[in-house]
């Protein structure tokens, strides 16, 4: 069950450049409903936590066995027994709960988490996700909890740059990297635009420093508007 979009028509923000990483994190945070149970993936998605208001009632889940995770630990707060999934020392909030790994993934797989935010190498217009393996022959495969998260949360938001360093789009007709999950992503938040993806293809919700026309030119997929 996907979270409904507030906007009623596609908005082109042409009076500005692309979103910074921090602005992108703020945009994701804006769209997470109050009171949600949320898992933030390793890396850039972690920045979303900085933009969740203390009064949002949002509870953070970390797959290594905790609900009610607080911010990163500082100085004397660092406790080797208390880390997030990226193995960074974190803090606990009042009302936190600990549980073992099988329970942690059961609550994910069982559809109890509302939102999961993940990074990606590629996402397809149909919502397929590739974020665990480049497929390079010398790369050591490492999947962690990515496949479990991709199919577990009610809504999977991807957070990434729209274009790779070589300029090629990361929102694609079909993923060329090995898949993490099929038809699992509901939204793609990028520095250039916010997309809804799924069986009906890609719909642009907002653009940042790029017009629909420019987007259409740079991407190999059909784009719908609200």
């Amino acid at each position, binding site marked *: 069950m996907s979270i409904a979009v507030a906007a009623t028509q596609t908005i082109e923000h042409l009076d500005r450049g692309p979103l910074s990483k921090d602005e992108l994190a703020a945009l994701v945070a804006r769209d997470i409903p109050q009171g949600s149970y949320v898992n933030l993936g390793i890396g850039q998605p972690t920045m979303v936590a900085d933009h969740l208001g203390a009064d949002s009632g949002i509870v953070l889940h970390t797959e290594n066995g*905790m609900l009610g995770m607080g911010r990163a630990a500082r100085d004397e707060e660092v406790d080797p027994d208390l880390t997030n999934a990226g193995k960074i020392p974190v803090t606990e909030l009042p009302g936190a709960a600990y549980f073992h790994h099988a329970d942690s993934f059961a609550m994910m797989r069982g559809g109890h988490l509302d939102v999961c935010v993940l990074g990606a190498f590629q996402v397809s217009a149909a919502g397929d996700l590739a974020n665990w393996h480049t497929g390079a022959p010398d790369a050591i495969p490492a999947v962690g909890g990515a496949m479990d998260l991709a199919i577990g949360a009610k809504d999977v938001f991807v957070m990434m740059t729209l274009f790779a360093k070589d300029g090629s789009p990361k929102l694609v007709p079909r993923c060329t990297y090995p898949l993490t999950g099929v038809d699992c992503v509901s939204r793609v938040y990028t520095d250039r635009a916010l997309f809804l993806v799924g069986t009906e293809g890609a719909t642009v919700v907002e653009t940042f420093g790029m017009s629909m026309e420019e987007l259409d030119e740079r991407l190999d997929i059909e784009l719908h508007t609200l």
Partner: protein
Amino acid sequence: MSRAHIVTSPAEAVAGIEDGSTVLVGGFGMAGMPVTLIDALIEQGASDLTIVSNNAGNGDTGLAALLAAGRVRKVICSFPRQHDSYVFDGLYRSGKLELEVVPQGNLAERMRAAGAGIGAFYCPTGVGTPLAEGKEQRTIDGRDYVLEYPIRGDYALIGAQTADPMGNLVYRKTARNFGPVMATAARTTIAEVRETVGLGEIDPEAVVTPGIYVDRILDLSALASQEVAS
């Protein structure tokens, strides 16, 4: 012997682990990693081991040291590649180590199944990905699932916070991670704990791993006081 037994030395804790054993090793990174038991296993000398753990060693200690000592044939884990997994990386790249990558939730659930007597289970994780290739699939109520088999251990080496003489265990914060599941999935479970308390001193409502799953307990605080005494 089914009742938990408090051992007095790391060597006694890992005694009898045979060459070729499958050993479940707790911990998520270093949190919950039973470093003293792993060091004792290196000293004990068992080789040709299959290690089941979330990661494949960090830095030069713990699991990384066991790998470096050449005792491991195969690693089953979810996330071998880390910024400080150079020991694993080198052995894997030189073809000296077999690797089975398992999604983290499947790793936990496959051990849970082993401990709970489940023959196999249908799981939605990994459908349509390379990790599901060659596995039996089935559509149930319109959703696709992959058949996953249990992972059983001959031994489990885990870390916990507190034990009592019954073998009941309590963990601390996210160091709990795989410990409770691994304790159920192995023929012999060996726990290193930071402290032991007297019978009845753990609130029965607060026990996380009941003693029925635990065979040997090594009390690290008792070891430390032995060292001070000698």
